[in-house]
């Protein structure tokens, strides 16, 4: 898949934002007033910024509101609704915390649940696609949720949880890659099933092989631009190492280092967040760039 900056930004930022909102809704940290304002400002900037970024890949963004109508079947529609609901509920909760010093617990829990649901629905947009075996796995939502929670914990300053959640998310990330690498083959979709050729030429020819010859047009097209993106194996390995290091290992290291000085501790936490964000962005780049759409089979490409 084409690793469009808009979708990478969207999933990275909004995942982090809704992760933070989840923790804030649960009361971690239970802040009020100006401090709460700063936390919520960061959470909303990330979540809303991510959502806005996602509209850049729309052909007709001015019609985006229509996307809320099909929640019965469409994960994208559900995600939109969840996001709006989460932002509204958490907005109310934030108003209480910032201006009224109130902790409306039930509202907070509902907001946290909606925030997590938003991340889940986002992940389901990808997970539902049988056409992209690397996404069409139970591990995809687990990966999205674990990363979101780890990032949320990190931003929320829940360092002790963050370390464990980062460890978990890193492990899930590794598992996701591991399983993802075999997903296309495991899906059973091949050029033979795509074309019906090679196996259907009579029993005598069942051992036939099929290869794509000329593409339909020598000119490019939307499908090739959108779905066919080739990442070199070495390049991918390097990027995975970077994603794992920056996204999970370094933040854990930054958090785990015993620090007495509060300033340095905060600085280290800041580094951890920055490192995590870059790492997740790299992981998300790979998430798209390495995702092979079955339509590539018709072009002899994956």
């Amino acid at each position, binding site marked *: 898949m084409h690793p469009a900056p808009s979708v990478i930004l969207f999933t990275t930022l909004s995942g982090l934002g809704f992760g933070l909102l989840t923790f804030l809704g649960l009361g971690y940290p239970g802040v009020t007033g100006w401090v709460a304002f700063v936390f919520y400002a960061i959470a909303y900037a990330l979540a809303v910024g991510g959502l806005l970024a996602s509209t850049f890949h729309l052909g007709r963004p001015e019609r985006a509101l229509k996307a809320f109508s099909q929640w019965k079947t469409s994960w994208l529609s559900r995600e939109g609704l969840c996001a709006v609901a989460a932002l509204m509920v958490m907005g109310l909760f934030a108003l209480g915390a910032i201006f009224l010093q109130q902790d409306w617990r039930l509202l907070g829990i509902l907001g946290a649940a909606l925030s997590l649901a938003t991340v889940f629905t986002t992940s389901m947009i990808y997970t539902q696609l049988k056409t992209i075996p690397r996404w069409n796995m139970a591990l995809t939502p687990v990966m999205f949720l674990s990363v979101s929670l780890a990032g949320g914990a990190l931003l929320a300053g829940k360092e002790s949880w963050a370390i464990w959640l980062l460890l978990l998310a890193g492990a899930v990330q590794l598992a996701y890659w591991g399983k993802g690498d075999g997903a296309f083959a495991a899906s059973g979709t091949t050029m033979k099933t795509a074309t019906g050729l090679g196996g259907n030429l009579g029993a005598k020819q069942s051992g036939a092989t099929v*290869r794509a*010859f*000329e593409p*339909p*047009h*020598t*000119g490019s097209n939307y499908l090739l631009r959108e779905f066919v993106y080739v990442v070199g194996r070495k390049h991918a390995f390097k990027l995975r190492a970077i994603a794992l290091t920056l996204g999970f290992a370094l933040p854990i290291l930054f958090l785990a280092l015993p620090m007495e000085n509060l300033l340095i501790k905060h600085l280290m936490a800041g580094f951890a967040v920055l490192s995590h964000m870059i790492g997740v962005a790299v992981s998300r780049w790979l998430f798209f760039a390495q995702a092979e759409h079955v339509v590539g089979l018709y072009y002899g490409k994956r």
Partner: protein
Amino acid sequence: MTFQQPRVETSPKVSDEIRQTTCYMCACRCGINVHMKDGKVAYIEGNRDHPVNKGVLCAKGSAGIMQVNAPSRLKAPLKRVGPRGSGEFEEISWDEALEIAAGWLEPIRKDDPSKLAFFTGRDQSQSFTGFWAQNFGTCNYAAHGGFCSVNMATAGIYTMGGAFWEFGQPDWDHTKLFMLFGVAEDHDSNPIKMGLGKIKARGARVIGVNPIRSGYNAIADDWVGITPGTDGLFILALVHELMKAGKIDLDYLSRYTNAPVLVNQDPNSPDKGLFLRDDHGTPLVINRKTGKLAPFDMKGVRPDLGGSFKMGDITHVSVFQLMAERYLKDEYSPEAVAERCGIPAKRIRAIAAELARVAFDEAFELDQEWTDFRGETHSKMIGRPVAMHAMRGVSAHANGFQTCRALHVLQILLGTVEAPGGFRFKPPYPKPVEAHPAPHCRVTPNKPLDGPHLGFVHGPEHLALKSDGSPARIDKAFTWENPMSSHGLMHMVISNAHAGDPYKIDTLFMYMANMSWNSSMNTGGVIDMLTDKGEDGEYKIPRIIYSDAYSSEMVAYADLILPDTTYLERHDCISMLDRPICEADGAADAIRWPVIEPDRDVRGFQTVLVQLANKMKLPGFTAEDGNAKWQDYADYIVNHERKPGIGPLAGFRGPDGDKSGRGEPNPEQLDKYIKNGGFFVEHIPAEASYFKPWNRAYQDWAVDLGLYDSPQPYLFQLYVEPMRKFQLAAEGHGERQPPEHLRQRIKDTMDPLPIWYETDQQGNEGFTVNALTQRPMAMYHSWGTQNAWLRQLHGRNPLYLPTKLMRKHDLNDGDWARVSSPHGEITVPVMEMAALNDNTVWTWNAIGKRKGTWALEENAPEATKGFLLNHLIHELLPPKGDGLRWANSDPITGQAAWFDLKVKIEKAGAPEDFTESQPALEPIKSPVGTGPKDLTWKVGK
């Protein structure tokens, strides 16, 4: 559950009006419905009533809308202001353009009309352009057949009075085995596809003989990936097998062919190899009923295939005996030819067996009585459901003529020509060679030529030679170098004119022929010749006038450009005098008419020729009172009479428009055509629909329609006597004698019975890989590239290599290969193709473009990745050290031997090592600029 679906308008208005005309996106000439909205072209589809395409339409046809709006269209007449090749022009008025042209041409006419060489390319009005040239008086006229498929056309007409091409067709409705040889994917394109569809729907077998398994060959049930240039050998092996097994149609051979005709066998006679004839010149056979000599056409005669006759000391034996003696020899056995053809002997035999099985075991009868030319009535029509078709693939070799002959002989031996289920002629064919004119070349200042330029020679007496024996024509057509060059040799014109051999010319006038690019062998050389100057500082070809509708590569090399219209803006007639749109079941012709008016200062080329003729008051165009007969081409189409009552269009003649074929000119004729969908068709009666060369009902019908003036029954010429006459000359008989250096070649190649010979490989040492081109079905010549839709399909052309050669040279898709021939070298991207002869490479023709042409941006893939194989092909063979120019062509017809190309391949680099195919020529300045960036083409609201 109820669904709230949007309401879709399922009956939108399709268009304001449908205008029916004839397509010109290729040479196929399908009928089209042009849907108009607000006076603009909105959508083009096939015309269901049309005899050629019956409603279907190919990609090119449907893309016509993008041709009519192409930014490459020339806008106004142009006068060259920079050096040739620079592309520097200034726009001028038509008055000035005609003034300039007439100013060049009139002095030539008064002095020596042959100083004008007038050659037209993809011309569909040859009967008109030929008429113009004849009335101008030059002998130097032809269209592009010489480098297209003249071998096929000429071999067909000499052998059986008609050819494949679009002049005949398989009996798609009855054939059970269809064998397709070397057909590029563009000629007669929709009818072949429709026919294949019919065959496939019946589950009948298709055998494809072609080194490349693409297009039609991709759906062949059996593919014979033959070595290029060996088709003749393969065919003669089939002949060998079939004759040996007696699986030949003896009845058909004895009745309808010259197999029983007696041939003089006296080794010393000046008539050796000629037919025994009676006092009227009619060939004689032995009548089996009497055992005596009889004219072949005598009523009740039963010609004896095995006949022989001794007249005095001179033995005469039948053609069939000569054939048996030759083709039963072991040198034609499958085993003997297998390796050279690249086809296992077992496979050849299997194909021969299948031909025999289908022709004879699956023979069938049509319950249709008919009467033959001898007056004998047959109660049934016997079907032989084996059909064949071939085209440029077998034709464009230096042994192509004999190969095409061999193929026709194979068809005839099986009795499948004009039999139900076999191959059928389309009117005006069948037409024996004697019914065609002979070539004419006598030039007289200020007078028309003494007759039509092109035709069919019957012997040395018809060669176009001057009294000193030198060639009369600039292209050396109809000379000892290529005696049967019935279509002329357009590919030799520039080379000969530049060399002043056989003489110098003054003005080269060309139409729709991209000679400085894909329509020439040796593209770079031709560009040099067009721009070369003599010691006097003048161009060696002093003046060049060119007419084209588009900004092609050739434009920059002309001095005066006469911009043509697109096909929807013009009048045309697809005439029975020319290459009509007939089908086997009917005679048909068609018109084009301006369904839209040009939005530029352009004129239809034929109208410009009329205007030029009127300006020069050419005879033929000028009435006795000195006034012009016709104002424009439409006027000519309606009112010209070639013979009394016979004009360019056969339909709706006579004052009331109710006469077909023969009748007075009808001023309403074009309107009648338009009302009838742009065409006219006259169906052939059922009893006349098969066995046409010998069928009385057909012959009478053809005379009524004006195709002949009298019935013309004839025999198929398995043995072509005119060829023997050239051999006799080479053996020293007769007054007209060939030059010494050609004697042996004439003796060797002009065999009156089909032979196969290896094409000249001298100088080709080390170049062993066959290199071919073919045209994609979605592109026609260079035209597709300017079309925004079609160029997305084929915007570049890799060189396709078989898997074996890819591995041998360590090549992967996208790598660059250096491809060389004795003549040149190119560096091009490669792509693997498994379904390809192991020792053959190929590419799509004419995708590569010169920078600055066709209104493309200079970095268009056609101009960077695209390439021409033409750079590797020379119009001459490598020098033999004898100081002579030996043409790279068939020694019989002069057909350009494109497909004899042999190359060497080396890896040049990885994809990133080159950015452009080589050679990369300098850009030309575009006279039309480039096109718009984006297109959202919608005419209606």
